[in-house]
């Protein structure tokens, strides 16, 4: 009696295994959780015998909707976390009336923004005035689409992901200009001029510091760059780019430039509220104003995600034994750390002056960023050992010290002499 039952059980187990082997991909694992909506839509469309292009279109649309949904939620949360963090740094409470710990504050803000009156100044060009906030959100969302969030979660696997990221990023400048010009007012104009000059200046170090990563990874695809950072030195030090001499310098340059690109404090001159009201956003109200903020925060997520991909190993776990945790959790953990760093910088540093800003970009950031490119080549061809560590660090450190000394002695802002306001 027992034997047939045992055989039946074994056969059942084998057939289950065979089924799992045949389908290859279980529907729901931790790794593929973010892709569940996309696969459900694709399966549903296939079930109703939809044509192939419709299936892939539906899949892509759902993948895009997933990314947008995740990051809009993150944007809402961040707007609260930022206010709470700023409040903690300033020794006050921050929003604490709407829900526990002010958790409903983003909802309240959203309702406020939606129900506010939408004012278009009489001197504004209404179409361009409307176009600008839309144009400022689009590139941020497009840029979020090419970042590899996990081993399986890559919304748009693009061969030229990095080029795409920077190409759509340039649209922001056009949008800021349109916003500043179409408002037909002085402060937006000044803010747009500041914003564009700042973005052009800091785009250079941003792209140059990404260049060395591309050089050593040998690919422009972001998933390829993450894959190139897999593995561990000495069994436990992750092979991330930030942990090499050139990568550390390029990563710091990238971090500063990213901070400036997303117009955040201490580089928030374009919207410095104590100087030029709100810069290019001055003449906007209601939901258009909210769209500017949405674009700014989504852009912050995108550029932090790119920095993580380029320098912090993307979704690679920080220690060898941690591969069982879904990779996108590592990505979002790193994202949280980077974003918190940005918040910390914002609470710590005062806003700098426009001439200091430009001087810093052109005389300090760009030379150092340029230097990382040949040093990365040297690193590649000098064996990546202890000797090349010393050599590369020295080559990077000496010009840095020289630049810093010059910067401090000759170019540092002297105390202003006020002739009338004493």
């Amino acid at each position, binding site marked *: 009696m027992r034997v047939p039952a045992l055989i039946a059980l074994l056969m059942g187990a084998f057939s289950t295994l065979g089924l799992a082997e045949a389908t290859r991909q279980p529907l729901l694992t931790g790794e593929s959780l973010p892709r569940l909506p996309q696969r459900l839509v694709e399966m549903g469309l296939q079930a109703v015998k939809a044509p192939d292009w419709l299936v892939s279109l539906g899949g892509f649309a759902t993948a895009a909707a997933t990314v947008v949904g995740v990051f809009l939620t993150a944007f809402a949360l961040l707007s609260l976390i930022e206010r709470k963090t700023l409040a903690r740094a300033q020794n006050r409470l921050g929003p604490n009336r709407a829900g526990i710990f002010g958790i409903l504050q983003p909802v309240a803000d959203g309702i406020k923004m939606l129900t506010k009156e939408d004012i278009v100044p009489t001197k504004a060009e209404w179409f361009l005035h409307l176009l600008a906030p839309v144009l400022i959100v689009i590139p941020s969302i497009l840029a979020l689409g090419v970042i590899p969030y996990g081993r399986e979660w890559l919304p748009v696997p693009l061969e030229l992901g990095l080029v*795409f990221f920077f190409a759509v990023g340039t649209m922001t400048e056009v949008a800021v200009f349109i916003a500043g010009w179409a408002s037909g007012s002085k402060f937006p104009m000044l803010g747009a001029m500041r914003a564009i000059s700042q973005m052009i200046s800091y785009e250079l170090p941003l792209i140059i510091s990404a260049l060395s990563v591309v050089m050593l990874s040998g690919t422009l695809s972001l998933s390829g760059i993450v894959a190139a950072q897999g593995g561990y030195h000495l069994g436990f030090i992750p092979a991330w780019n930030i942990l090499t001499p050139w990568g550390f310098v390029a990563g710091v340059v990238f971090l500063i430039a990213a901070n400036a690109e997303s117009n955040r404090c201490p580089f928030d001159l374009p919207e410095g509220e104590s100087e030029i009201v709100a810069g290019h956003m001055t003449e906007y109200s209601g939901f258009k104003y909210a769209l500017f903020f949405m674009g700014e925060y989504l852009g912050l997520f995108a550029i932090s995600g790119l920095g993580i991909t380029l320098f912090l190993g993307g979704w690679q776990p920080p220690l060898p034994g941690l591969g069982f945790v879904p990779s996108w959790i590592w990505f979002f953990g790193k994202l949280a750390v980077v974003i918190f760093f940005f918040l910390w910088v914002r609470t710590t540093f005062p806003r700098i002056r426009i001439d200091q800003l430009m001087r810093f970009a052109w005389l300090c950031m760009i030379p150092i960023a340029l230097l990382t490119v040949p040093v990365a080549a040297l690193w590649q061809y000098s064996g990546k050992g202890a000797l090349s560590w010393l050599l590369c660090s020295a080559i990077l450190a000496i010009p840095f010290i020289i630049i810093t000394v010059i910067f401090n002695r000759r170019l540092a802002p002297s105390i202003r002499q006020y002739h009338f306001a004493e």
Partner: protein
Amino acid sequence: MIPLLILSPLILLAALGAVWKARPVHAALLLALALAMVAVLYLTVGAEFIGLVQFMVYVGGVAILIVFALLITRPGDEAAEVARRPSSLVMGLACVAPVLGMLLYAISKGLPVEAAEGANPKLPVEALGRELFENSVPAVLAVGVLLTAVLIGAALFAREPANKPEPPASR
């Protein structure tokens, strides 16, 4: 073929608008739009790298520089007036004629049929890079020297004169 038929009239319209619009900022924005649509055209035929670089260089670089120059100099209506002078017309024609001639010459030679039909024109970036930096190095270097010269010239123009009187309010 269909994207070409949809996009080319739009590109033409935007380009014509860039020429006809009286306000310089409108013209600059329409020019940016036309250049962006040319980038989309490249993307639709599979030339992804060229399309993205077109977008980055022309929309993000050239158009922004034009717009920025407009912001700094703030040309008013006199710009439109300058554009209506006969000498401007002659200058414009002199600039357009060689380009138009080259285009017409290329079209008169005819397109290579087998390249236009069917064949996937997808070019891997690596092949493009090898072509640029192995076979065409002199051209790339020449362009680099040219751009450096332009940069130095721009810096010379932008440099403040040495003996400028001190402004009264701040340093």
